[in-house]
């Protein structure tokens, strides 16, 4: 062989394992169809949680939206429903996420910026004006103030004459990842976990069709977690919540079916096959975990239910239309992994919150895949691939390894309190960035294939500067109309319930109905629970 002939490129997976040029009948070594895969809808659900998947129902196409005021969000919701979207997803502004009212000094710069401002139930009810809550499912990206938002949804349903047992949707209610990655914490971890448990426990009996929790690996991944770490950390966090509810006497099969996950696809260090296989692996890992460790029997407990989000982190400011191609490939990976619902980051998201055109394009990507390509015709079409099954096995082993390491370090809560997990992920993020800087990790248009860009004017969504004034006027009007004494009384009862350590959800309805603000409710609870102090992490 001529010496000048170059050998094949060396490839190492994100797990650190060497990747062969091709895989064959010997891969993976100890393969048994029944044990490792089995048919879709059958334990351990590696191939999917339903036997027919997209042949029966396509994934839910859900674009994250919500901005400024209740009216503009309501308008956008109606626009999306008319465009064929099948579920709603609501974004809240930062003050609402952190429990501040629009008229509080710290909130001023962020009112209505990244989502809708909700100060009182009056705002919330307007978002769903003319939208029948028994006809749709709604996903709420909310954590620290999740109990308040769920209570508002229940009350809004009641007002429409819809029984809470008929409400469908998902509430994120995953506070632990907020300490790691997204920063919308209020109380310290311990009482926060208690509140997560309150919401799950309440939904079990009262709002049974609602996913009371959606443990999210997405923000953790954006923060620097590897693709498999994002799944392993999410499962580790889910176990904290499971244990919280179990210790109150709930049975595993009553609560586990209410757990769902939201997991990322894509990113700066995206690998198509790794993203798919770690989700196939997660289904198998979860099924075995719930059966063997927790003794679950109900198949809904054993089924790892997840939605996916095409990540914004892998999208680039350079040559932004390239992001449509990236989002398409993320969507393809999400569908091959058996996602139940998909939200795709939009091509202009690097600049601002998405414009109507960009949101529609993300929805159209999903519709093209669903209706024009045939990829929704066969369940788990990659199943049985020598490579995919080998990688799925490796991913499953790694998930177990990471979870064992976390337990060895005293558990995820201890790691959050000390800041060690935050430090580890930020350092990983820095390593990825260095690889992009050096060109070791190629990003098209960023460190390779750069062009002198035409100055394309992307239509950028701008928040109406009048938003805050409108919101302040609304809040002042609501405050003027309410009965101050009844508000105080309801808040005092809430505080007593929090001090008594009982489930606080039933005690939220009175203050919310009396138009107590989100900020007033949170300030009341802070008196009992305290406030989180961030550990130094860098």
């Amino acid at each position: 062989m001529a010496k000048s002939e170059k050998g094949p490129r060396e490839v190492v997976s994100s797990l650190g394992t060497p990747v062969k040029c091709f895989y064959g009948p010997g891969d993976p070594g100890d393969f048994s169809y029944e044990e490792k895969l089995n048919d879709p809808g059958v334990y351990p659900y590696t191939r999917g949680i339903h036997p027919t998947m997209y042949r029966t129902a396509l994934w839910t196409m859900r674009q994250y939206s919500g901005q400024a005021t209740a009216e503009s969000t309501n308008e956008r919701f109606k626009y999306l429903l008319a465009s064929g979207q099948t579920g709603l997803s609501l974004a809240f502004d930062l003050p609402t996420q952190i429990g501040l009212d629009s008229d509080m000094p710290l909130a001023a710069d962020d009112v209505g910026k990244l989502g809708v401002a909700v100060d009182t139930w009056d705002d919330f009810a307007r978002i769903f004006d003319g939208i029948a809550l028994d006809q749709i499912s709604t996903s709420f990206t909310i954590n620290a103030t999740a109990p308040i938002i769920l209570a508002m949804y229940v009350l809004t349903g009641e007002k429409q004459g819809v029984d809470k047992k008929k409400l469908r949707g998902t509430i994120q209610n995953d506070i632990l990842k907020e300490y790691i990655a997204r920063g919308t914490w209020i109380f310290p971890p311990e009482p926060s976990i208690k509140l997560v448990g309150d919401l799950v426990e309440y939904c079990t009996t009262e709002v049974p069709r609602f996913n009371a929790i959606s443990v999210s690996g997405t923000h953790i991944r954006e923060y620097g977690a590897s693709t498999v770490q994002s799944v392993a950390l999410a499962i580790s966090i889910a176990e904290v919540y499971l244990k919280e509810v179990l210790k109150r006497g709930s049975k595993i099969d009553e609560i586990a079916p209410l757990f769902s996950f939201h997991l990322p696809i894509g990113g700066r260090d995206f690998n198509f096959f790794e993203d798919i296989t770690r989700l196939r692996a997660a289904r198998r890992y979860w099924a075995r975990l719930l059966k063997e460790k927790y003794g679950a029997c109900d198949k809904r407990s054993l089924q790892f239910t997840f939605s996916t989000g095409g990540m914004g982190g892998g999208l680039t400011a350079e040559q932004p239309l390239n992001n449509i191609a990236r989002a398409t490939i993320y969507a393809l990976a999400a569908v091959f992994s058996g996602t139940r619902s998909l939200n795709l980051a939009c091509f202009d998201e690097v600049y601002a919150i998405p414009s109507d055109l960009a949101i529609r394009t993300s929805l159209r990507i999903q519709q093209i895949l669903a209706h024009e390509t045939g990829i929704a015709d066969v369940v788990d079409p990659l199943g049985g691939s020598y490579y995919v099954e080998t990688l799925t096995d490796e991913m499953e082993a790694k998930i177990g390894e990471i979870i064992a390491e976390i337990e060895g370090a005293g558990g995820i809560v201890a790691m959050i309190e000390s800041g060690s997990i935050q430090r580890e992920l930020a350092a990983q993020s820095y390593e990825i960035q260095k690889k992009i800087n050096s060109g070791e990790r190629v990003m098209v248009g960023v460190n390779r294939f750069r062009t002198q860009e035409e100055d394309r004017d992307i239509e950028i969504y701008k928040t109406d500067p009048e938003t805050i004034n409108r919101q302040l006027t609304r809040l002042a009007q609501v405050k003027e109309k309410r009965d101050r004494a009844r508000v105080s009384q309801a808040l005092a009862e809430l505080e007593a319930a929090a001090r008594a350590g009982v489930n606080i959800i039933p005690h939220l309805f009175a203050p919310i109905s009396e138009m107590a603000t989100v900020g007033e409710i949170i300030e009341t609870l802070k008196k009992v629970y305290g406030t989180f102090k961030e550990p130094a992490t860098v």
Partner: protein
Amino acid sequence: METRKTIRVLVAKIGLDGHDVGAKVLTFWLRDQGMEVIYTGLRQTPEQVVQTAIQEAVDVIGVSILSGSHGAVAEKLTARMKECGLDDVLLLFGGTIPKDDVALLKGLGVHGVFTSHSRLEDISTFIRGKVTGEGAKND
């Protein structure tokens, strides 16, 4: 060989935005470039940041903001810096900042704006250029 003064940088998160991995990555990078870097943590007010900048005698304040409130924050921060006489401190903004807003921030007295287009080297080179007068002075 002359010992060069070590550049001191305050990386700050102002407002409610909790996305701080970019701030941390920048902190690591500037430290690797030999600078001393302090990171404020989340949810700071402009007043707190200016106070820390004075206490720590920094040469540079770098504000990371991804929530869209950069305009309002820059207004308050630059006003506060003027009040406290921090005229010599280099002020940088970075994050999700639309192109159209760059001029607005510069008009308020922000010296450099770095968005998702920027590379880490661009930021460290800019700082070194402005603080020590070395290297490229690209904006």
